[in-house]
């Protein structure tokens, strides 16, 4: 930078060695612990129910998907979407997302191998079934089969609480997903990634929908579309955790970051 005065370290770039940040990602990204603390505070202090926030989160995901991949853009004859739901809340977000995708004119199919015995998840499953959303008894054996049948895959396997080793059947599922060519939209965290450090040899989704705020792993996201969803964080909470979220447009429940 000859001729340009050195301004010193960029105050928006805390720490060092982080590398360039994708455009649109706010400067303060919660760690896994902070993300869990924000969640806890929403439930214990603000008295939100899991149902409320899960519904808003799932709706955000479906809305973001509809903006990035409108039904007219699908090369399959119908706008078919495979939604892969994991064993926890990320899976719940996926169930809500599937239901709203159906409302928006898509043809979702769900794969939900490990279902918690809790009324919340049982209710969400029933809602999908009553809307004629099929639940696959088995995961498609080959990546090529997924490519043929679906125009998009929603990764709702693991979220921001994920830690440690990936248990079956999800290890094999992620292995297959890494070989498909149709786009993957990941809910909150690309499944299998470390929530802070990412995973260089892991899933490379085309879209990431960060919920509440992008987590630290988001700096490693290299896909085309990064949306922010979960427009329910009160201003006071945003300030407390220095989230520095950019403003959502009007009454939209999603914000396109890239």
């Amino acid at each position: 930078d000859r001729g340009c005065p050195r301004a010193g370290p960029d105050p928006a770039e805390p720490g060092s060695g982080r590398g360039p940040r994708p455009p649109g990602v706010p400067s303060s990204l919660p760690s896994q612990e902070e993300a869990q603390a924000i969640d806890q505070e929403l439930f214990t202090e603000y008295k939100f129910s899991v149902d409320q926030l899960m519904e808003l989160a799932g709706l955000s995901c479906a809305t973001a998907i509809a903006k990035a991949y409108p039904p007219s853009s699908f090369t399959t004859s119908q706008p078919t979407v495979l939604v892969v739901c994991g064993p926890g809340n990320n899976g719940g977000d996926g169930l809500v997302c599937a239901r709203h995708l159906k409302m928006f004119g898509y043809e979702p199919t769900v794969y939900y191998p490990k279902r918690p015995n809790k009324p919340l998840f049982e209710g969400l499953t029933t809602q999908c079934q009553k809307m004629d959303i099929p639940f696959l008894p088995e995961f498609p054996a080959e990546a090529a089969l997924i490519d043929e049948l679906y125009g998009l895959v929603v990764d709702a396997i693991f979220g921001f609480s994920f830690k440690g080793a990936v248990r079956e059947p999800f290890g094999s599922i992620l292995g297959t997903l890494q070989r498909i060519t149709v786009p993957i939209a990941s809910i909150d965290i690309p499944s299998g990634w470390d929530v802070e450090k990412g995973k260089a040899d892991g899933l490379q989704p085309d879209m990431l929908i960060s919920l509440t705020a992008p987590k630290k792993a988001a700096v490693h996201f290299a896909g085309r579309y990064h949306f922010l969803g979960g427009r329910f964080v009160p201003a006071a909470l945003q300030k407390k955790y220095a989230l520095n979220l950019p403003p959502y447009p009007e009454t939209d429940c999603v914000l396109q970051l890239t």
Partner: protein
Amino acid sequence: IPVSSRQAFPLPSLPRKQPTVLVVCGPAQNGAIGLVCARHLRIFDYEPTIFYPKRSPDPLYRDFTTQCEKMDIPFLSYLPTEVQLINDAYNAVVDAVLGAEAEASEGREPCAAILATLKLIRIPIVSLDVPSGWDVEAGSSGGISPDVLVSLSAPKQCARRFLGRQHFVAGRFLPYDVQKKFELNPPEYPGTECVVALRAPR
């Protein structure tokens, strides 16, 4: 409801300097929906104030109240009977007093007094589902005259008597088999919108 309120009253168009909105909540489900609406209005950068004189004991609705309080939405301790005070302080009033389920509560306090005041205000009213005090089928002459009606799920019979500026339907969550069973024939929702404006009545 907050999305349709925003569509009907976009922020830059509001006459008062601050985007203030009064949300009047009744004792039952319609009031609880008003609480949720107020919270989302806050997220959309409006400045809602709530009047919720008779609070439901339902734990879900109590949590809605907490959520609003924690978001610094003020709760009025009384509704001014001096109507000009309301006209001056707010841009619009959200009427979440009585819904389709109301029959007996209408005559009882504090709803009767609230409705009497609402009949006199000059600023626009946005009614949730049913203009409070209207008979859900026959409508009401001499009742409140909302500027905007937001029908929930589907318009009720009394909506045919609605004479205000805009009528929205918020019901995109209805599964197809429910729609068919009740022969609801809902309109097409544009894109990913959760509300749709019906053709203006006049």
